[in-house]
């Protein structure tokens, strides 16, 4: 059972001063799948992510990751277990170059992060892998550009590269395509598809074509609760989903 | 014969003590040089001044540099006990001469005494003894202390307590307040409810002036209790204003309006001060101390650079000047001269801008200062 589902929640609930952002959510993410979380704005998707990665403390409920109860763990420790997220508002290290951004992630995994007495040239051994990762997301030409100077879409790509550098077992992507041009969207979609062979992916996305093409299974949230779950083809016919999320005119 | 002397006037030029020492002390030193008439006798005397900013390490750095680079022979003034003691060590190490006028700590002539040091104007022992004794004798036999919570305040309180008790008085209570407290009302209320006849202020500077001002506000002086400021300067009275300060008792060793000589000097002095202020006792001490130093140099005839020798000479000669009158320097470096108990005049009694004090008593130097038998100075054991 733990093998089949990498992540499970039971009765997950988050209340903000009387307002239930997430209410009694039971989510099961199958290992190796691309699982999409969709829902209207304010449905509680980001909050869910924050709960799963421990950036918020649940008001109630339980989170199981690889069969282990992680409800009470600290965010950094969850990340260390291989459950890594990206942010809805892009999160990079602005004054580090793209290469350094990725290297920071590689470094964490391979130790030596506390070594204050060694030269940072020991980090050069990560350059190769970092460049590979940058290449994967189409950023090789930006390797030496400080992240702050990169266009928005590229920053998103960089964030994904950084996340991949951790070699996580499961990635949580919060609107990875937001603000990207079509070109990049296609690139990143292809990338996600490719990496999903290795990782489990839970993502939030409003771009329906991406959701439709990529995801194995979709959970629809509204008002903090699960409205429906299934494949895109089924859901797109579901009247409740149409009304709450897709909109009337949706074909 | 080497007749070149360099004087370093080291003071607080911009902080809390700038008014009682500061530029006025430098001026006093200049006047001492002029009045000594040594220049006419072939001596070449220079003065440099420095600002220790009330920081011991800046003070020592300046002192050290003065000796090493500027070849200073004598350092004068140095208010602020912490700085004064720090500088004391440097001067001893460099074998200079130290004529301290501004610092209150009696350690300079006790535990930390040095063969290079003369402590001129006043110290905590003297302050405690004269004021305490005089007030108890005048009937103020119950005391409450408002004490600044650091070594200086503690020493003042301890010494005064001893004097009060020795004279048959009683200490009914006290409260320690932190340094630089802007508001004393809490403490004053406690003093008030103690019903002590005398409220002894074992603090200094802004703390003292604020206590006095606020005591008036809370009707403490009107209620019959008397304030005894253990350390107070002329400039403080100016700041408080006579209206508030009237009736206050305290001790100084110099006041500009004592006699013709002091008045004459003060007039000359005030004319050169930016705000027309007469000298404080600290500034007067700088002047008098240097005049005595020059006398010693003249007696030596030259070669003023061996500090111990010069100080020995100073100690061997009785002191006498226009400002402090007759006195002597004891082997521990303590200058002995008269101390005066003053009371602050009522506004109606004051006739001139700086006419503040009424003399109520004189304590001869040998009763005012630490008797040699009580001194902890190692120099005395030889």
């Amino acid at each position, binding site marked *: 059972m733990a093998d089949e589902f990498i992540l499970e929640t039971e009765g997950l609930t988050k209340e903000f001063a009387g307002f239930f952002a997430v209410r009694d959510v039971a989510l099961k993410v199958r290992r190796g799948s691309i699982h999409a979380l969709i829902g209207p704005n304010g449905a509680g998707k980001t909050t869910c992510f924050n709960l799963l990665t421990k950036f918020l403390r649940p008001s109630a409920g339980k989170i199981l990751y690889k069969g282990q109860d992680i409800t009470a763990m600290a965010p950094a420790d969850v990340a260390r277990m291989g459950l890594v997220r990206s942010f809805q508002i892009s999160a990079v290290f602005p004054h580090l170059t793209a290469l350094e951004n990725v290297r920071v992630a590689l470094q964490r995994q391979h130790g030596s992060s506390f070594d204050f007495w060694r030269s940072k040239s020991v980090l050069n051994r990560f350059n190769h892998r970092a460049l590979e990762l940058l290449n994967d997301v189409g950023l090789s030409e930006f390797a030496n550009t400080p992240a702050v100077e990169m266009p928005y879409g590229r920053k998103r790509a960089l964030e994904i590269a950084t996340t991949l550098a951790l070699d996580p077992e499961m990635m949580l992507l919060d609107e990875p395509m937001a603000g990207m041009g079509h070109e990049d969207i296609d690139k990143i979609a292809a990338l996600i598809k490719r990496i999903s062979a290795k990782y489990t992916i839970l993502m939030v996305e409003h771009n329906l074509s991406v959701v439709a093409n990529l995801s194995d299974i979709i959970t629809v949230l509204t008002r903090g609760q699960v409205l429906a779950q299934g494949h895109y083809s089924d859901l797109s016919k579901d009247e409740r989903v149409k009304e709450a999320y897709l909109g009337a005119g949706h074909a | 014969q080497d007749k070149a002397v360099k004087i370093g006037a080291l003071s607080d030029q911009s902080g809390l003590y700038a008014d009682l020492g500061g530029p006025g002390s430098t001026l006093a030193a200049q006047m001492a040089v002029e009045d000594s008439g040594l220049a006419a006798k072939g001596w070449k005397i220079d003065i440099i001044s420095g600002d220790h900013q009330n920081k011991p390490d800046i003070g020592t750095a*300046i002192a050290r540099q003065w000796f090493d680079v500027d070849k200073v022979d004598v350092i004068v003034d140095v208010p602020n006990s912490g700085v004064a003691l720090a500088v004391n060590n440097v001067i001893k190490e460099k074998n200079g001469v130290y004529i301290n006028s501004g610092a209150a700590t009696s350690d300079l002539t006790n535990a930390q005494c040095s063969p290079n040091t003369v402590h001129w104007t006043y110290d905590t022992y003297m302050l405690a003894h004269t004021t305490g004794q005089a007030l108890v004798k005048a009937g103020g036999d119950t005391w409450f202390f408002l004490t600044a919570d650091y070594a200086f305040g503690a020493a003042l309180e301890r010494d005064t307590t001893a004097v009060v008790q020795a004279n048959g008085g009683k200490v009914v209570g006290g409260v320690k307040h932190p340094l630089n407290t802007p508001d004393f009302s809490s403490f004053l209320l406690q003093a008030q409810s103690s019903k002590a006849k005398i409220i002894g202020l074992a603090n200094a500077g802004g703390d003292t002036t604020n206590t006095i001002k606020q005591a008036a506000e809370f009707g403490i002086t009107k209620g019959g209790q008397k304030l005894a400021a253990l350390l107070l300067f002329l400039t403080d009275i100016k700041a408080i204003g006579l209206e508030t300060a009237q009736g206050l008792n305290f001790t100084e060793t110099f006041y500009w309006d004592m006699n013709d000589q002091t008045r004459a000097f003060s007039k000359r002095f005030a004319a050169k001060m930016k705000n027309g202020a007469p000298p404080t006792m600290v500034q007067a001490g700088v002047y008098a101390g240097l005049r005595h130093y020059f006398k010693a140099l003249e007696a030596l005839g030259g070669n003023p650079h061996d500090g111990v020798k010069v100080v020995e000479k100073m100690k061997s000669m009785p002191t006498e000047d226009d400002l402090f009158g007759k006195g002597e320097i004891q082997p521990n470096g303590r200058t002995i001269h008269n101390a005066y108990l003053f009371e602050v005049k009522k506004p109606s009694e004051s006739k001139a801008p700086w006419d503040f004090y009424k003399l109520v008593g004189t304590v001869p130097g040998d009763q005012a200062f630490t008797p040699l038998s009580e001194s902890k100075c190692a120099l005395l054991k030889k």
Partner: protein
Amino acid sequence: MTALTDDTLPVTARAMRDEMIVFVFVALALAAVPFTGIYPFFVMQALCFALLACAFNLLIGYGGLLSFGHAMFLGTAGYCSAHALKVWALPPELGILAGVAAAFVLSIVTGYISIRRQGIYFSMITLALSQLLYFIYLQAPFTHGEDGIQGIPQGHLFGIFDLSKPTVLYYVVLVGFLAGFLLIYRIINSPFGEVLKSIRENEQRAISLGYRTDQYKLLAFILSGTLAGFAGSLKVFVAQNASLTDVHWSMSGEVVLMTLVGGLGTIFGPVVGAFVIIAMQQYLASYGQWVTVIQGAIFVICVLTFRRGVVGEIAHYFRRSL
């Protein structure tokens, strides 16, 4: 792709080479001081403050943590060294060790309390802690309150070097400073330094990458505090006293000023800044009452026109990191 690898290296390598050249130059210039007629005590004092400012800079410039209480490490180490030397009569090397150890312990405790606070609150909690310590030292008997510990014996380092000889003392202080400086330089350019920088840039992201950022910040705080303590211990030998000045908040403020005047987050900036400020205090001392006005004016001018600090401006002009 391999071409790119080769491209990336020279950038850092060049920066490091520049920095090393400047370092050697500075070290040689400092070593020559006793032969130039420059007053060595002034330079020694400045070196102690320079080390303090460098330690402070490690925290703010590379960790993004503005400590407003760094004087507490300087002062604590100073008091402990002074006490060890004077009362326990320990030899200089153990005296220094005592001071550094005290700063180390203090930095663990204060770091543990303060490190979890963000931005301005971090600054304020460090300020509060140092003020607490100030009042404790004001009253603790062993510090001798406002008189301070005076007349500290300098002794013989390792039983050989007579520290009461100014030249010997000078070189000892210089070696101490250079060692501290190189250590800081290494920390900045270490794997740990990289993580520190990324935490400064975006802490949330660093957490999500699995870094327990509090631990890194704490380590940075401890390193910085301990090195500041080392500066305090060295200073005891120079000034031969330990006083409340060194734990007062205005000293913490002065360190900030030094670092800023020299250039925040630059390697040599704090050193230059320390020299500028100390020189200013020394040479302005003869201007008496105007000293604070002049000082104030200099700060205003610095902030308005020289914001990168002396070194920062130079580095910016030559487009180099220094």
